[in-house]
Structure formats: structure tokens, C-alpha cells
């Protein structure tokens, strides 16, 4: 199977402007179309990443963006997969192109977020685990991240200073990224001096929630050849579900599933990556650059191992040796990651694809990873969602 071509990418800068998510989405969509040199009226499929915090127009995001850009009779789809929403939307577009049902597809994710912790919508829902975890436990997203971080300290000897070092690295990476929300240096000392949110994670270890939008224009190989587009190709989109029994505590659940056998199966995050590598026909050694979901600083270290970029327990060694910095052996989050962006849920997995596209084209400016030819994204959302996208040039 050949890849589907990335014809264009675009973003609306991340921030906290409080405007309608549709406005951000249109800016990103128009930027991606301009980048591709494709007119909106030539798009035959629009796929929207749903946002659950903006009412009905958010639930039907595909249609909302189609109407905002002007009805053209294009086919429409809307995806929701929590934090993996953007990748699932991308996969829908890719599948229709590979099936010969679409030539040019526009994928858009955009969000407007409230301040503070992400929380369920209002109303009593005693059968919704996402509602129950707050009502019965007060278990926020950072509390789950903190439990993973504490495990890392216990298993591998990670220190709070290592977690802070991830933030310092990503802050440097994102310093001049025009789409990043936070563009300032963060020192290890500053992270450690920031208020504790959920022990051992400080405020600056945990990503913020942001407004933002990202868009990707995909096209078929034939269309790309005919129009001289798409030196960057999508080689894999992994959106696998977990495997029963889910042994690792995962958002938003209150317990794991009962595991009585040997613990040799890959954990969920690892299985996301394995499926991506298998589909792309490559391995971790082929990867030049990775954009991973640093919801917390500590999670970036977990992801490096889940992606096979280093053996279990060795992510801190790579970090300390500067190997995950731009210029190192395997730069991680050259965009600055969620540390510099904050999370705009339905846009975030697409933002990772935008960054890798710029990296593989050699258009990433100050944050360019020299000679990057293969990139992988990794992302995880609640309710058994996650994604990894492999791009090559």
C-alpha cells in the first residue's frame, strides 16, 4: 500500500482567546488549503474533529466547518475519540481516499476550552465513569498522570528534576514556534518551585488547556502526481483499542480489568506504536523525529519507551544526555509539545501531524531537525483511545 499524500497543513496559533472554535478552524483550514494550493471548492470530503464543550455545533464539527467555509456539496464526517480525535478524523479521510471514494479531503480540529481542569459537562450521570471519577474520587486528569509519574520514579529511579528537565527542553524547542502559546524558557528550578498539583507533578509539569486549531489536506497519489503535491506521505495511522484485560489503570476508569495471567502482553500505549510500525513497515530505528503526547512531563518519558526509541527505564538517560533535544540522536517534541501549546483536544493530534510535515519538508525554521525523513506521532485519549501516525518523505 502506498501512502496518502499530505498536500497541505495549517494551524491557528494556540492561545486562550475565548473565541468560537469555528473561527479558529476556518483560519487553520484556509491556511492548509493555501499551503496545498488547493481551492476549498475542489475539496470533496471534509472531516471534523468533534469538540464536546461547545454545544451542538461542536458535536457536528464537520458540518460546522463545511458551512463556515461555504456549502459546496462535499461529503462530510465527524469523529470523536477524546484526545485522539484528530488522528481518527485523519484516518477517516485517509480510508476514503485509499478506497477511491475521495481525491482531496480536508481534516479540521478546533477547540475553545474553559480555564482550569477539564471536567465533565454539567448534569448527574451515575452510569458515566468520567462523571463518577470526579464525584466519587475527585480524580482529575493530572491525578492519573501523577500516578504514572510516581510509578516511573519507583520502577526506574526517575527524579522530579528529570521531569522538570523535559519541560525545560520543550520550552526551548518551542521558543520561536509561531503557533505555540507559551514561548518562554523554563528552568528546572522554576518547574520545581511551581505549586504542586498532584504529587509528584508541579504546575509546570502538567499541560494547560488551550484554544487552537489545526488542519490537514490529504489527497490521493494520483491527485498528488497530477498537481506536483505531497512530498510528505502518511504511511500509517494507528487507532487500535486496548486488549482485554486492560492491566494498566487508564482514564477515566476507576479500576483495571482483572488480570490473572502472565504480564507479557504489550501495554496499551506500546500496542498503539507497534500497530503503526507494522502498518508502515518500519521500526523505531528508522525514526528521525517524534511528536509525543506530553500531557505531563513524565509521560513524555513513558512515550519514548512505548515507541521503542529506547529500552524501558532508559528515557531519563537519553534526556540527560541531550539526545532528545534538537541536534540529538532522536529529537522529541521539536514543536515544544503540549508543554508549549497546552491541549486543544480535537486539534492536538492534527497539530502533531502539521509539525512533522514541516519537519520532513525542512520548513521548521529554528526548530528544524536536520535531515528528518521519518517521523512518528503518539497520542492517547480517554476511554481506550490513542493514535500514532507515521509520516515519511
Amino acid at each position, binding site marked *: 500500500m502506498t501512502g496518502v499524500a499530505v498536500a497541505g497543513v495549517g494551524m491557528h496559533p494556540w492561545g486562550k482567546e475565548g473565541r468560537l472554535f469555528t473561527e479558529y478552524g476556518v483560519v487553520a483550514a484556509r491556511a492548509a488549503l493555501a499551503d496545498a494550493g488547493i481551492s476549498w471548492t475542489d475539496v470533496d470530503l471534509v472531516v471534523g474533529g468533534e469538540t464536546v464543550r461547545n454545544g451542538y455545533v461542536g458535536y457536528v464539527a464537520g458540518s460546522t466547518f463545511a458551512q463556515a467555509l461555504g456549502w459546496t456539496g462535499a461529503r462530510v464526517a465527524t469523529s470523536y475519540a477524546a484526545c485522539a480525535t484528530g488522528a481518527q478524523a485523519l484516518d477517516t479521510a485517509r480510508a476514503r481516499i485509499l478506497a477511491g471514494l475521495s481525491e482531496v479531503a480536508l481534516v479540521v480540529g478546533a477547540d475553545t476550552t474553559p480555564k482550569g481542569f477539564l471536567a465533565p459537562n454539567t448534569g448527574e450521570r451515575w452510569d458515566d465513569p468520567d462523571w463518577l471519577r*470526579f464525584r*466519587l474520587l*475527585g*480524580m482529575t486528569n493530572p491525578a492519573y498522570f*501523577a500516578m504514572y509519574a510516581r510509578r516511573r520514579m*519507583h520502577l526506574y529511579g526517575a527524579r522530579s528534576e528529570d521531569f522538570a528537565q523535559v519541560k525545560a527542553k520543550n520550552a526551548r524547542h518551542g521558543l520561536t514556534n509561531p503557533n505555540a502559546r507559551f514561548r518562554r524558557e523554563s528552568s528546572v528550578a522554576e518547574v520545581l518551585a511551581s505549586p504542586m498539583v498532584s504529587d*509528584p507533578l508541579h504546575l509546570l509539569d502538567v499541560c494547560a488547556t488551550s484554544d487552537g486549531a489545526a488542519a490537514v489536506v490529504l489527497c490521493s497519489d494520483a491527485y498528488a502526481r497530477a498537481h506536483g503535491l505531497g512530498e510528505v506521505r502518511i504511511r500509517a495511522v494507528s487507532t487500535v483499542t486496548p486488549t482485554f*484485560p486492560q492491566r494498566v489503570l487508564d482514564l477515566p476508569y476507576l479500576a483495571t*480489568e482483572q488480570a*490473572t495471567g502472565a504480564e507479557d502482553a504489550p501495554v496499551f500505549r506500546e500496542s498503539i506504536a507497534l500497530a503503526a510500525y507494522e502498518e508502515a513497515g518500519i521500526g523505531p530505528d528508522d525514526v528521525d523525529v517524534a511528536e509525543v503526547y506530553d500531557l505531563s512531563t513524565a509521560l513524555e518519558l513513558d512515550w519514548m519507551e512505548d515507541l521503542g526509541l529506547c529500552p524501558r527505564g532508559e528515557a531519563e538517560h537519553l534526556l540527560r544526555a541531550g539526545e532528545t533535544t534538537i541536534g540529538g540522536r532522536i529529537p522529541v517534541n521539536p514543536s515544544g509539545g503540549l508543554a508549549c501549546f497546552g491541549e486543544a483536544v480535537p486539534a492536538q493530534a492534527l497539530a502533531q501531524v502539521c509539525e512533522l510535515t514541516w519537519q520532513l519538508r525542512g520548513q521548521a525554521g529554528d526548530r528544524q531537525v536536520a535531515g528528518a525523513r521519518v517521523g512518528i506521532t503518539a497520542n492517547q485519549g480517554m476511554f481506550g483511545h490513542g493514535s500514532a501516525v507515521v509520516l515519511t518523505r
Partner: protein
Amino acid sequence: MSAPVVDGWFTTGPEPALLGSSCTTCGTVFFPPTSGFCRNPVCDGSAFAVTELSRRGRVWSYTDAQYRPPPPYLPASDPYVPFALAAVALPEGLVVLGQVADGFGVADLTIGAEMELVVETLYADETGDRTTWRWRPVR
């Protein structure tokens, strides 16, 4: 009057225990309690027996909530008092989250340490105290 915040998830009394659901077809135990369909992919069971889970387990990981969680969390006090949370691995092969008992914080917890289930007040509403399960370090 004091009553569990949620029905059928745990027993009360001097030796409280969590209540799981055991699939009558494949025997898999689930917590929180479930009904209607078994989630084991190779089982098409639909009936469950109520089963008490072990009262003791070992800490898989732990943290705390230094900032007040957003609704639907209901703070037990004003001003807000931070509390600890633990994920406890039970001999049955499940890891179950819970708040940590009143009076204990992260400094009292270590991974692998033994914990015991207790029932304490989560918050009070117009009907009285609403109780929940919590994990308490075994001294």
C-alpha cells in the same frame, strides 16, 4: 443519617469490602459492579454474581489533589482540604482507585505497601452523610 454515596459498590460495618461482579459464565470479576454483558471478548455471558473483593491490597501508585477538583466533585469542607489518592492492587488481579483515609497523605504512602479498605464520609447532603470506600495504610 448516613448512607453509601452509591448503592451496591461496597458493604458497610466493621469489616467493609468492595462488591465486584463475577461473570457466571467465565468467572471474570469486575469492579465497579456491572450487569447485562460480560466484557471478556471471548465470553458472551450476561449474568453476574455479587462477590466481595479482598479488603487488603498493595499500593500500585498514589498521588494527591492539592487543588480542589472541579464539579461534579463535592468538597467535604470549606476551605478545601487536599486529600490523597491511591491505586491498590488486589489479590484478585484488579487495581482499584480510592481516596486515602482521612488523616493520611502522600508522606504515609509507598508503592508496595499494604492498604486496607475503610468506609468514611465523602460529603454531606440534605439526606445526611454520604459514605464511600477509602484506602487506609496498614500499620
